[in-house]
């Protein structure tokens, strides 16, 4: 197959294409197990295999994909035909930023391949989670385990050839209950990116037991709590909500395809313009953010992106000033041309596709915030006069240019005069992105920093779901509207 693909890449190039690449998935396997109130509601396995081909012709992209393994030449022909048709309407001929044509392998770190573990052991793990959550006050208990294993072979007309083998483990547990008014509440936790590998070894049953005790205790506190007040306070965001705040209002806002208007018919644009790089005070001086795809253990680390560009660690915001973006080969060329100078020296290696049948687009890697020097969570709380500690993502809604947002949280703890006073329910907060990040008044130290994952990030047309990470500390923001 590989030799045939090499030939077809060359053949398509010879027909006038300025660039051709192919992503062949010999396999992508996913195992999903969901236990809901003791019932194994999902015991499924999926296997996908196929070919996706991208062709650049006349400054325009064509793409085709098929699960018909016996017809790769037809996929190349269709992609070229699509590119020729697209070339009829070009306003900025697509060019790709230079990069070295890499020939390499990448294997994600994994000690125990989860697909070699017996089903009964996986179900046993879920039963363990379920039993730990089965306590008074809990109406619904849900445990999820998802395992992914895939091989992606990438080759292009610039002679890059990359073989990636990636294994992922995702796990989540959730307890739900209804208060005296019948309103539902939830507490959940995702496994996170613990340790340095992401195989079966990361399923740590004692950790899940401890988390279950904590979740149930907090849920029961929420069920008898008063509503979150409608007022202005400092908000102290714990990692299970801070990662989503970062995701939605730094990550998506800094995707270069959004900034350049390529997502306007669906996901939306960005308040950021090309003129903002190097100038915009995105946040307070306590904010330093980066796109770091070189961390060993995260779904946001993948060795090489689907442009064949190696993983990188790119500074996005430096002490509050916007300096970088989430980029791929096409967009940096266009941005530099439109800016009239070099804004981005090369691709940031962030172009990724969710499957063989989708085209790569700018995607977050690990969008992280550096730990700060404001101490532990306790120390931050002790220095907060009037605030609320928030945790757990319950709902999220963001303006189409990422300029404003509304988040609902699972639990809130009011803080008065440096002490936590009581739990509140139905906690929400909202704000304007730049104003909010400029109100960042405390960033926790290493002890508060945690690497979380997002396994359901949606973007693009045709739509794509992507997995990625966020390494974040506890952060405090001042003068935030809560309870609306």
């Amino acid at each position: 197959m590989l030799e045939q693909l090499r030939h077809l890449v060359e053949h398509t190039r010879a027909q006038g294409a300025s660039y051709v690449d192919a992503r062949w998935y010999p396999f992508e396997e996913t195992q999903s197990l969901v236990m809901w109130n003791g019932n194994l509601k999902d015991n499924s396995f999926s296997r996908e295999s196929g070919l996706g081909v991208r062709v650049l012709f006349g400054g325009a992209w064509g793409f085709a994909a098929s699960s018909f393994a016996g017809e790769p030449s037809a996929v190349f022909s269709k992609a070229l035909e699509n590119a020729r048709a697209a070339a009829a309407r070009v306003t900025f001929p697509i060019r790709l930023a230079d990069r070295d044509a890499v020939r390499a392998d990448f294997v994600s770190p994994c000690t125990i391949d989860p697909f070699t573990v017996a089903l009964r052991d996986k179900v046993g793990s879920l039963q363990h989670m379920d039993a730990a959550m089965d306590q008074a006050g809990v109406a619904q208990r849900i445990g999820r385990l998802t395992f992914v294993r895939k091989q992606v072979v990438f080759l292009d007309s610039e002679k890059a050839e990359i073989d990636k083998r990636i294994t992922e483990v995702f796990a989540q547990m959730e307890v739900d209950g209804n208060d005296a008014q019948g309103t539902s509440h939830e507490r959940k936790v995702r496994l996170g990116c613990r340790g340095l590998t992401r195989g079966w070894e990361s399923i740590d049953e004692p950790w899940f037991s401890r988390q279950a005790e904590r979740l149930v205790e907090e849920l029961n506190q929420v069920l008898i709590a008063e509503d979150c007040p409608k007022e202005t306070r400092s908000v102290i965001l714990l990692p299970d909500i801070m990662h989503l705040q970062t995701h939605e209002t730094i990550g998506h806002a800094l995707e270069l395809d959004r900034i350049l208007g390529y997502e306007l018919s669906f996901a939306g644009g960005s308040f950021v313009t090309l003129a903002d790089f190097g100038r915009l005070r995105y946040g307070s001086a306590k904010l330093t953010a980066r796109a770091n795809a070189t961390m060993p253990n995260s779904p946001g680390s993948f060795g090489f992106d689907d442009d064949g560009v190696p993983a990188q660690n790119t500074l996005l915001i430096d002490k509050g000033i916007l300096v970088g973006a989430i980029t791929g080969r096409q967009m940096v060329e266009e941005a530099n041309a439109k800016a009239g100078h070099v804004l981005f020296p090369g691709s940031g290696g962030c172009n990724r596709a969710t499957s063989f049948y989708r085209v790569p687009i700018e995607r977050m890697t690990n969008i992280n915030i550096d730990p700060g020097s404001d101490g532990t969570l306790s120390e931050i709380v002790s220095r907060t006069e009037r605030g609320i500690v928030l945790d757990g993502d319950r709902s999220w809604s963001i303006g189409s240019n990422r300029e404003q947002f509304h988040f609902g949280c699972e639990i809130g703890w009011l803080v008065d005069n440096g002490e936590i006073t009581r739990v509140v329910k139905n906690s929400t907060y909202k704000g304007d992105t730049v104003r909010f990040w400029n109100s960042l008044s405390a960033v926790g130290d290493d002890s508060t920093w945690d690497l979380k994952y997002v396994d359901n990030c949606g973007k693009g047309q045709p739509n794509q779901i992507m997995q990625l990470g966020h390494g974040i500390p506890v952060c405090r923001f001042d003068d935030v509207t809560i309870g609306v």
Partner: protein
Amino acid sequence: MIDQVLQTLHDLRTYAIGKGYEIEFLYQEENGSLMRFANSAISLNTSEHLIRLNIQATLDRRQASVGLITDLSRADDIKGTIDMCWEMVQHSQPLTYQPTVPTYRTSFTDESAFDRPLAEMSSEQKLAYFNEAALGLESPELKLSGIFSSGSNTIALMNTRSDHSLYFRTSDAQVTAVLAHAGLKWELIAEQSAQAAPDLDPAALHRELSFLADRFESTQPSQLPLGAYDIIFGPAAIAEMLGVMNWVGFDGGLMKRGYSFLQASDLGRQVFSPLFTLIDDPDRLETFPFRVDFTGIPRRPWPIVDQGTFRGFLWSQDSADEFGATPTGHTVAHKSLAMGGGDAQACSLPDLVAKRRDRDALYVPFLHYMNVVNPTKGLITASSRFGALLLRKDGSVGIPFNVRLTQSLLDIFGGRVEWLTQTTLPYNTTHSYGARNPVAIIVPRYMQVHGLEVSHSNPSF
């Protein structure tokens, strides 16, 4: 095509029976293409031809499933996968209830929603459509974005209980055209859903975009004060809210699990506005319907809300099995929701703007990034997008920056509803995450609701 698909399933069924397995097969074949526009160019032109096969095994109270995206010529691989699925079910954990494996009493074939000219539209035809829709509207500042997604979708089911089969084939198109101002960042939208080629009308998109562009180019936008507004929702916004209601409102399983804003005690009660009627109507081809559900239950128009009175929860087979309810024929990839119209006359945006009014009203065509803040309260939040207008009682039209609404669906569709248009239309709500599953909801062209709170107001686009 149908013969080949059913023969494949028949062969797999024969294999499973020969091994003594209890297996259900769901075959899905999509042949789709999507032309995407951005910055007034074709930014992407794709084609995908994919076959999915889902294999579900049941052994007493145990279930397991395997999904494949594959090539049917790999018959031995597929048979091996059936064996694997049977192996999985033996190691599964028994459910606390008995899952039903349906017995199809008769075969059912429906290709009435398939239109070959639409399914096989060429790139050139799509480009011509877009060129007509945007004719004369683009400029160096005003750029065209959008999609033209079209294709066909085939679903076939068979199991080891009987040799009967279900077969559905549809064609669909979803068109979105957006004009966005590069500097000022405002965005305008016009959309169309098609089940057959004659449904496509680029001139209609052009009229709507042109009307909006004239106003946006000649009016200075402004920030709206917070507070209560009469809001006129457009079809996209109405359909999006009905989609959420379908999820955390009428679903019997979610109600039993405590996630619904409707309760069993709401049955037969006036929960919504008397102006609100909603049915699941598989006779509407525009919704790409299933006229038999995946367990073989024939589907008929099913009242959900009748003039504000809640008529019943919808039960899939699995939820019905778990909670001891009777399945209602809603084990389908999607329902065919159809909201009834009212008596207000406004067939188009110019009609709406020209309509006489005694109070100002905020027109919200589209709700961006809607999420459920609290399902049991029906509380949603979302931002306006794509061409909101402030329609003043003096006849003038303002351009507001986007605003956020955080409101209960019980309020929006409750006693605050003032009027609905007589005209209804299908709004395409298809997403292309995973398998192709074209879906549209029939909605009134416009719906006015009194006194909804704007909870956040942007100072700019």
